[in-house]
């Protein structure tokens, strides 16, 4: 059957105790070979035992060993966990001995994979675990944990229940057309339902995009004419926060100049070097490169100068950012005001001074408000952060649009129900549930039909 795998389950180098997890059909036998203490093959399941790891006569570490027998374990296989006390080097040594005694090194995520394959957790939970392993900040971890506990599964399940309610009613209308006392679903009902389903889906997507912000941070681009003070703003933002300078290339080709934390959310500031490089030529603002960065940005900071009138280039930039999440930052607020912004209908205008270092805090306040960052500190995170899952939700939304169109074209309900079933199935694949007897159970438990 399954071979036995082992790896260190706690993060390396942190904390006094490290845990080695061993899983597989020989887990207990193998650990027992190197454990001096009770005979682990004879102990009850889910018990902890004190003893030593001894190899070739040498005592390696003083340990507590938990023995958990299948199937009530994380992987649903026999699992042994060794709590090592001797620091990282002796933990590594114990692991090495396990490998010598018949264990194989676990691949990344392999415990979770086994838990999934053995049917203990659904696909969504499995994916959440892998997110948890890879989570960086405290907030990411919270989302990951919520996913694991099935909060997002719950959300999807609720939506599927809604769908199956209307699907089973339509089906009963088809299979038992002459039962006049069974409610006949109308197009109006479907219209109403579909409105609600649509807004739920849109909400999940919206909230998931918030979740993405927590996970990936806010991608921020600073643009403006040359010499307007972009570098100074960048430095002020980074300086004032003891910037976390990272070399993470991120998901795009952008170079992240640096990141700061606002309310626990990462603000990743993207270098729009292109603008600087071509800045010799005033007539070419080097828009093309910055556009690329802008298009994928969550936030654009457009920097203008307080004591100059708006130039043609400024106006062009203002036009470019019209439909972006933009804050207009007006620098050099200590100088005489020559800029005329009375025609701008952007409410997000902040005056700062990069030299005297004022206004930076109000800029950060503004960002906090725009992204509603405070809610992340208190709310439960129900969002879907996994790309595969999110794309499935978006697929469902597309089908919702088909239904709306079909309703418009006056298509029959039993035809539109094909789309409803499609959504129901797609949502099912997100949480790894597929069609079984669910529909029929629903049908016969809710409707009184038959001869």
């Amino acid at each position, binding site marked *: *059957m*399954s071979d036995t795998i082992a790896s260190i389950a706690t993060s390396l180098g942190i904390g006094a105790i490290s845990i080695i997890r061993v899983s597989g059909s020989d887990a207990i036998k193998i650990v027992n070979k190197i454990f001096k203490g009770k005979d682990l093959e004879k102990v009850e399941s889910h018990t902890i035992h004190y003893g030593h790891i001894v190899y070739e006569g040498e005592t390696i570490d003083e340990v507590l060993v938990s023995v958990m027998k299948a199937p009530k374990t994380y992987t649903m296989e026999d699992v042994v966990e060794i709590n090592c006390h001797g620091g990282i080097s002796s933990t590594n040594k114990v692991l090495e001995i396990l490998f010598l005694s018949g264990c194989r090194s676990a691949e990344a995520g392999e415990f979770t994979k*086994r838990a*999934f*394959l*053995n*049917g203990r957790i659904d*696909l969504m939970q499995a994916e959440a675990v892998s997110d948890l392993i890879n989570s960086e900040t405290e907030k990411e971890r919270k989302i990951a944990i919520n996913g694991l506990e099935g909060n997002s599964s719950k959300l999807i399940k609720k939506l599927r229940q809604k769908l199956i309610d209307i699907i*089973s009613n339509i*089906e009963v*209308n*088809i*299979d*038992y*057309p*002459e*039962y*006049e*006392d069974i409610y006949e679903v109308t197009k109006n009902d479907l219209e109403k339902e579909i409105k609600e389903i649509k807004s739920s889906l849109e909400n999940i997507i919206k909230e998931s995009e918030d979740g993405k912000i927590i996970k990936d941070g806010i991608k921020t681009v600073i643009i403006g004419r040359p010499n307007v003070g972009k570098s100074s703003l960048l430095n002020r933002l980074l300086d004032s926060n003891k910037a976390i300078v990272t070399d993470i290339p991120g998901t795009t080709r952008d170079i992240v100049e640096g990141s700061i934390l606002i309310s626990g959310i990462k603000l990743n500031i993207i270098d729009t070097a292109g603008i600087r490089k071509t800045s010799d030529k005033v007539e070419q603002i080097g828009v093309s490169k910055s556009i690329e960065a802008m298009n994928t940005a969550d936030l654009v900071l457009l920097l203008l100068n307080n004591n100059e009138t708006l130039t043609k280039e400024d106006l062009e930039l203002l036009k470019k950012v019209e439909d972006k999440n933009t804050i207009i930052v007006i620098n050099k607020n200590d100088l005489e005001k020559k800029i005329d912004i009375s025609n701008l209908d952007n409410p997000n205008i902040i005056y700062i001074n990069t030299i005297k270092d004022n206004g930076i805090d109000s800029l950060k306040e503004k960002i906090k408000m725009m992204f509603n960052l405070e809610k992340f500190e208190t709310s439960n995170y129900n969002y879907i952060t996994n790309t595969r899952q999110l794309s499935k939700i978006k697929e469902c939304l597309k089908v919702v649009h088909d239904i709306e169109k079909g309703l418009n*074209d*006056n*298509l*029959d*309900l*039993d*035809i539109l129900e*094909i789309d409803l*079933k*499609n959504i129901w199935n797609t949502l099912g*694949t997100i949480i*790894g549930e*597929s*069609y*079984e*007897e669910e*529909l*029929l159970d629903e*049908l*016969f438990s809710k409707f*009184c*039909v*038959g*001869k």
Partner: protein
Amino acid sequence: MEVDIIVVGGGHAGCEASLAAARLKHKTLLITGNIKNIADMPCNPSVGGPAKGILVREIDALGGEMGINTDKSHLQLKMLNTKKGPAVWALRAQADKITYPKEMLKTLQNQENLTIKEAIVDDLLVKNKKVYGVKLENGEEIKAKAVILTTGTYLKADILVGSSRTPGGPHGEKEAKNLSDNLKKLGLTIQRLKTGTPQRIKKSSIDYSVLEREDGDNVLRTFSYDTKPMYKIEDQVPCYLTYTNEETHKIIMDNLKKSSMYGGYVRGIGPRYCPSIEDKVVRFKDKERHQLFLEPESLYYDDIYLQGFSTSMPHDIQEKMVHSLKGLEHAEIVKYAYAIEYDAIDPLEMQPSLENKIIENLFTAGQINGTSGYEEAAAQGLMAGINASLKIQGKEALVLKRNEAYIGVLIDDLVTKGTKEPYRMLTSRAEYRLLLRHDNADIRLRKYGYEIGLIDDVRYQKFKDKLQDIEDLKNYLNENKVYPVEGELFEKLNTSPILDGLSLSELLKRPEVKINMLKELGKIPQKYSDEVLEQVEISIKYAGYIAKEEKEALKLKELESIKIPEDLDYEIIPNLASEGRQKLNQIKPITLGQASRISGVNPSDIAVLSVYLKRLNHE
């Protein structure tokens, strides 16, 4: 005595099985307990309805008899669900319970290669796990190359009324006492099922003046693709409607413990879709009334079938219950309702060809496989007759796919999921409903009927002509346009005018434009039949959704195309979940598609299995 194929049982499965076998030129013997009960309808007097009606059309497309026989013998015909889309239209007939069996018997008796014998079969003749004949109650042995069991509810049947349990089949017929025990001895798993039937009421004792009347359609129709209507619209016999009331419910609740069900006298598992009236009253407490249908059984006797009132209450309570109904205050009960318990095999022990996995050359069809309903039985009977014949000829079995036929859904469900209650065909069981329509059963299946030899050249040519007409008309609609100058046309069609030329098929895509209107307005040639018009209209109007379902079906096809070796050892495949492993071992699916539909086999098992099979093929 020696024949090619023996069919045991003369119900709807047995009739189709023996006709198919004989028509495929095999010497066939139909053994029945009582020749008078051939093609008998012991329960409701109707054929068809949602999903079931489409089964009948499929039987007809393949060359079976049920559609033709219904056309010869019904009292009323109605297309259901016409207010909904074409995918769920379904024809239903009120059959005459005297004429239907009479006509079927005539067909059987006139069939070449087919002999009918009255006897009870006691045992199978089996050697080396292969059946070679049957043994009768009197000890006589009859040899055959294949045996088809279509025993209906007769295996160890018990009739239940209140607390009484009497061995026997419907109509006081003798049950088959020993066959199921002998099947068990041969290694088959036997399960116990239950079904029931309501009272029959004397027609003249019903006060129809206070009841709602339900008439047949005022359009002539047929079940079969090959018959012409044999009835007059005005000669159809109506059905009537009545309802239970507070008093009925009180009688039931007061006497609940006296029913076989609630008194604990029933062992078999009954169907959810056929609840007894006491079940309905108990489970749906807040319903003030339940609908009941009064259906005529025959022109030749006086019984009315009280649909919706099946019960296992004792006779005196049944009297009170019936008399509490509006219009039935003075009704005379001709036959009391009863429940019947019977033995069935476990359909999981069957191959998709309906051949038994344990005993070779043994086929089963109908209620013995755990289904319910005349149409479900007939469909399996036909497939068993076809596949037993193909087996004898050394040919590959005909297995219809889920996207090809309700018959495919039915059999796949049985052999993949099994059933713990009598299985009834429902549209909701089919995932490709829009492809499996009433109107296109011939387009889906006639080719198979022809290839096998159940559809002759004349019938096939007629079908091919229809296909040609459909093609021609589609082309015509694509090539011919309407123009803005024809303003009046758009007014007549009640649709918005156009700015540019528009092909007729584009015009037809508009929801408000119907193909019949185009015909009436002379926009298409008059020569095309209604069937052809319907086919073309559906294929144009629903093109988008048909394409969607075909795309889904294609995914299924990929999974179905991956065959699983019969001798695959699931024990050695790593990472299969234990429940999945056990189920796979039990059912031994023949394709990855079938494996994916087994309950308890989850998507990750399929992923694991798929990888394993790929590796296996590489080695």
